[in-house]
């Protein structure tokens, strides 16, 4: 019963996020995120009847939809990075290089492990091996998000309400899924407490709640940087020029009167 309650609330919130995006035209600002939500909504809604009839078939299909949404999750992380650093080309470049480095390092390690037959990469196989693959992909996602957070803190970059919500919601979901997958890899199918399955769904619902609130309307950062130093210097200088002009103009009436 609890499973269905969490499932329905998740679907309802996904629908609310999508409808709100249509009303506020937020999908123009975050197209990848809304594609991700649409994809999750479609797969959850279509898998529901399958779960009711055949849980075995559901688990088989679940991994395919999970893999697709996981890849789309990478797109969401890239969208977060793009929005967080759009006014900061230096930090953006740093994030790109660090992200590529982390990606290469983890998948390099993954490839070597696979070559040494430590982690088989058969995606069709169910159970621990797929959990391990999912866990490794979540680790890369977590590291990507971590890099964004570290750079935002290091460079003193203020994130907009939308980006903050996106990042925190995604981070919460990724962190809980990562821990669950890691537990599943270590203890296998024998370790399957009900609370673990519900924890992932509940954390996802919590993330949906964060996204619904944070993406209610478009928000810019409160203190954006000057697009370049030139802009702020130019404004100061233009203001000084205007003051001089006003001072010169104030002499004109007397000249005209005389």
């Amino acid at each position: 019963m609890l499973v269905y309650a969490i499932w329905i609330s998740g679907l309802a919130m996904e629908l609310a996020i999508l409808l709100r995006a249509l009303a506020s035209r937020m999908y123009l600002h975050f197209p990848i995120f809304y594609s991700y939500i649409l994809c999750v909504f479609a797969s959850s809604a279509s898998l529901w009847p399958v779960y009711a009839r055949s849980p075995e078939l559901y688990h088989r299909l679940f991994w395919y939809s999970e893999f697709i949404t996981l890849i789309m999750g990478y797109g969401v992380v890239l969208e977060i990075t793009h929005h967080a650093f759009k006014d900061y080309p230096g930090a953006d470049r740093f994030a790109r290089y660090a992200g590529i480095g982390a990606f290469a390092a983890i998948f390099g390690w993954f490839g070597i492990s696979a070559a040494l037959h430590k982690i088989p990469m058969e995606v069709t196989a169910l159970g621990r091996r797929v959990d391990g693959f999912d866990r490794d992909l979540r680790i890369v996602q977590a590291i990507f998000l971590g890099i964004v957070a570290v750079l935002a803190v290091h460079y003193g970059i203020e994130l907009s309400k939308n980006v903050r919500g996106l990042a925190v919601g995604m981070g919460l979901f990724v962190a809980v899924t990562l821990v669950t997958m890691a537990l599943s890899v270590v203890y296998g199918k024998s370790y399957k407490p009900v609370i673990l399955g519900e924890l992932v769904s509940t954390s996802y619902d919590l993330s949906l709640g964060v996204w619904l609130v944070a993406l209610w309307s478009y928000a810019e950062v409160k203190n954006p940087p000057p697009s370049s130093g030139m802009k702020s210097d130019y404004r100061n200088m233009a203001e000084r020029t205007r003051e001089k002009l006003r001072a010169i103009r104030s002499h004109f009436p007397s000249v005209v009167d005389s």
Partner: protein
Amino acid sequence: MIGLILSLLIAAGLLVLLLLAARRKRAPSAEGSSQAVIDARGALDRLQSGLLPREFVSRLYDRRDLDFVMACTPAEVQRRFLAERKRLALQWIGSIRNEIVELRRFHTEQSRLHANIGVRSELALAFDFSSFLMACRILELALRLRGPYGVQGAVRWTIGAADRLCAISEKSLDVLAARVNVRRETNSVEVAS
């Protein structure tokens, strides 16, 4: 099991970092402008001419003063001398730390806007600033525990590291000041035309 521990650490670290980043509020600043260069130049000048000159530092930590006071003055004066020197030394290290933090703030505010940022040099600088600030904290702790005359080796190392950071910041400031001047000239030409 190592994978599980690593996953737990990554998950916890991610949540902490995201909360830190989300809580961060940035005050408006004059980045990229001549005011920012002036502020940073002020911090650099205070460091180079006020806090780091060797004669000042060697005088502050000179044992001859201590020897003289120990030999020629009563116990109460010796106690007060040591307490005063300790207070001065702590203030000195605190001031150095503040100015270095100011230089780091200036550097990060500038570099985040530059599309041609050097990732390796940024990492090296971040490491330099962090290790220096950590060394300042350790020195502060050592000063509290051992007093100003028990940490001379650490003081020499701190001055050397601060000198290196000043040299790097000075180069960056020269480049930036030149660019601000070019902008000013460009703007003057634009307004004049």
